[in-house]
């Protein structure tokens, strides 16, 4: 009973589909990356006649039986494709011809197209004779197999039809027989269908011109809602999108929104957009708004930690709400205003602390923090950008008020080859008004005293 059902399925699929193959031998000379790129684009064109498009070496195949009625015949479909594909090939400076064929099986169409016959076979029962006329050259064979076929006096597929299949299987392997059975529609042929990459663009034409960006926000919000809906349905998220504000007779204003962590939260996107709007001035009233997604990312749901209080800080500090906040800061002030602070192993005090533009360090999590080496001598929390020279008044050091030295000296000397020539004696001092200072006495040059930091 099972067999009967399988057969009926096979028959139905045989009678129901017609595969149109498009073979482009000119692609053979190109490298595989370029071939893939071209085929991808052509598949996009082919989608105008069929929803089922699959890739094959230098060839594309689509199912056209389901669209025959709509286009009123295979000829119309063929003409349509010929025009689209021909134009595209000319754009790429390639020969604009291609071979084509249609038959009830994918492999059948492919073989017919490769042979250059431009054949059309509607009925499955005619497949055997149509394929029979083809030379064995169209088959995917290795050198050894070709030699054997030649030795056996087999030139055409019809010669093979006459041979018993179990013998063929022994001599040429099951792949060979499978290939032929697929072409004849005896076994099922699964195909991997072309799925166009996701694209999202939504726009809204305003009924009247708007100058106030705050009034624009609800409209942008609505577009973002559409976007988030789109992303949710496709299980995607986005890390980069553009908002275009169209003006009359002027170039559109572009707002690029980049996200550190791909998101599909409308709330988050709206918040970022609001931040951008805060800083934006538009040259003219807005007549239309458009949103386009530049980059799609797979969506990863974040799961909360099972243990509420992680013992070490490293587990939770990259939580998304902090990242969202940092993104907002960067959106508003620019990257150069958001700094991380780090320690550098430098002997010269000015160079022992670094302020760099904040960047997320993804590998920080797993890294075992290496012990940071700092001097055992006291270091102030505040450092002056430039050391400030101190006065000496009646033999006493003076800044705003007289200064009394508390401890020191600590000699800091750099080597001449490090490029920074420093020789200083550092002291901890206290000013009469209560400030704790970090001061130094130059040991070379003018031998002046300087204020370098505050023990705040």
């Amino acid at each position, binding site marked *: 009973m099972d067999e009967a059902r399988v057969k009926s399925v096979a028959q139905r699929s045989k009678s129901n589909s017609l595969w149109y193959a498009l073979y482009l031998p000119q692609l053979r000379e190109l490298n595989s990356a370029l071939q893939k790129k071209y085929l991808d684009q052509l598949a996009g064109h082919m989608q105008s006649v069929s929803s089922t498009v699959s890739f094959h070496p230098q060839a594309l195949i689509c199912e056209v039986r389901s669209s025959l009625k709509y286009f009123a015949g295979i000829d119309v479909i063929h003409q349509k494709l010929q025009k689209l594909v021909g134009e595209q090939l000319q754009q790429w400076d390639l020969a604009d011809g291609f071979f084509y064929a249609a038959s009830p099986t994918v492999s059948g169409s492919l073989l017919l197209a490769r042979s250059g016959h431009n054949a059309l076979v509607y009925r499955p029962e005619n497949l055997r004779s149509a394929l029979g006329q083809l030379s064995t050259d169209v088959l995917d064979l290795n050198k050894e197999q070709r030699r054997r076929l030649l030795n056996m006096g087999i030139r055409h597929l019809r010669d093979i039809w006459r041979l018993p299949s179990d013998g063929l299987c022994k001599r040429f392997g099951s792949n060979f027989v499978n290939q032929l059975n697929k072409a004849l529609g005896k076994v099922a042929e699964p195909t991997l269908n072309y799925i166009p990459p996701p694209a999202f663009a939504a726009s809204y034409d305003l009924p009247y011109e708007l100058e106030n960006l705050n009034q624009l926000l609800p409209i942008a919000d609505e577009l973002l809602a559409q976007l988030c809906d789109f992303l949710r349905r496709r299980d995607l998220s986005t890390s980069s999108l553009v908002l275009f504000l169209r003006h009359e007779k002027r170039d559109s204003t572009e707002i690029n929104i980049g996200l550190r962590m791909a998101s599909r939260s409308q709330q988050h996107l709206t918040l970022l957009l609001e931040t951008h709007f805060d800083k934006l001035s538009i040259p003219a009233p807005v007549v239309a708004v458009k949103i386009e997604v530049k980059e799609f990312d797979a969506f990863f749901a974040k799961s909360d930690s099972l243990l509420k209080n992680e013992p070490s800080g490293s587990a*939770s500090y990259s939580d998304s709400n902090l990242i969202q906040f940092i993104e907002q*800061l960067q959106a508003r002030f620019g990257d150069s205003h958001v700094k991380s*602070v780090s320690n550098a192993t430098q002997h010269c005090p000015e160079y*022992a602390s670094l*302020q760099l533009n904040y960047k997320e360090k993804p590998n920080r999590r797993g890294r075992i923090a290496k012990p940071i080496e700092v001097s055992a001598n006291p270091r102030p929390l*505040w*450092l002056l950008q430039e050391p400030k020279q101190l006065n000496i008044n009646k033999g006493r050091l003076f800044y705003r008020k007289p200064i009394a030295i508390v401890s020191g000296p600590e000699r800091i000397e750099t080597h001449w080859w490090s490029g920074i020539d420093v020789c200083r004696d550092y002291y901890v001092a206290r000013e009469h008004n209560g400030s*704790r200072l970090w001061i130094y006495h130059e040991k070379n040059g003018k031998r002046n005293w300087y204020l370098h930091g505050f023990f705040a």
Partner: protein
Amino acid sequence: MAGQGVQGRSTGYPQLDAILPGRGWPERGLMEVITPHWGMGELQLLIPLMRSIVEQGKWILWISPPYLLYAPALVQAGINTDQVLVVKLDTSCKDALWSMEKALQTENCGLVLAWQNWLPTKVLRRLQLAANTGDTLGVLFKHHDSEHSPSPVRLKIEDSYSENAGFNESEVTVIKARGDFRSRSATINLYQQA
């Protein structure tokens, strides 16, 4: 008795805990630290708090500090610099307040530090509200006290300088702390490590 029973977070200085209601810093809200000039131990006062915040995995945000924040000192104090972020702004007070409000609303920012001298009551209330929403603590460093400030905690560090006073000692006055109507002071050794 609004503040009664509110358990604070220990300041790390027993003498200071003793004069604060809740025996420590409030868990959330706004604090003002007043010093006649910078460099009087106003940051030392918060070092134990910073350490505990970083250990909780939260971040410390410094908004427009008056000088360069010096990493070796943070390391010496045992504060992981990976969880420290500095926002450098050139002039605008508005931008600083915007950052401060957003930061206070962000739960992962445990402590937000800002240097602003004159802020209207309305702004302070708004910041206080943001700190309550985000469950964070905001500290404003200023040179002058304003009597009508709505901040729940106001502290003053004073110059207790005399020729024979120790380097480490500072006079800290709690001008106001919600839950206690008296103002009390204590002499505290702020520079324990130094």
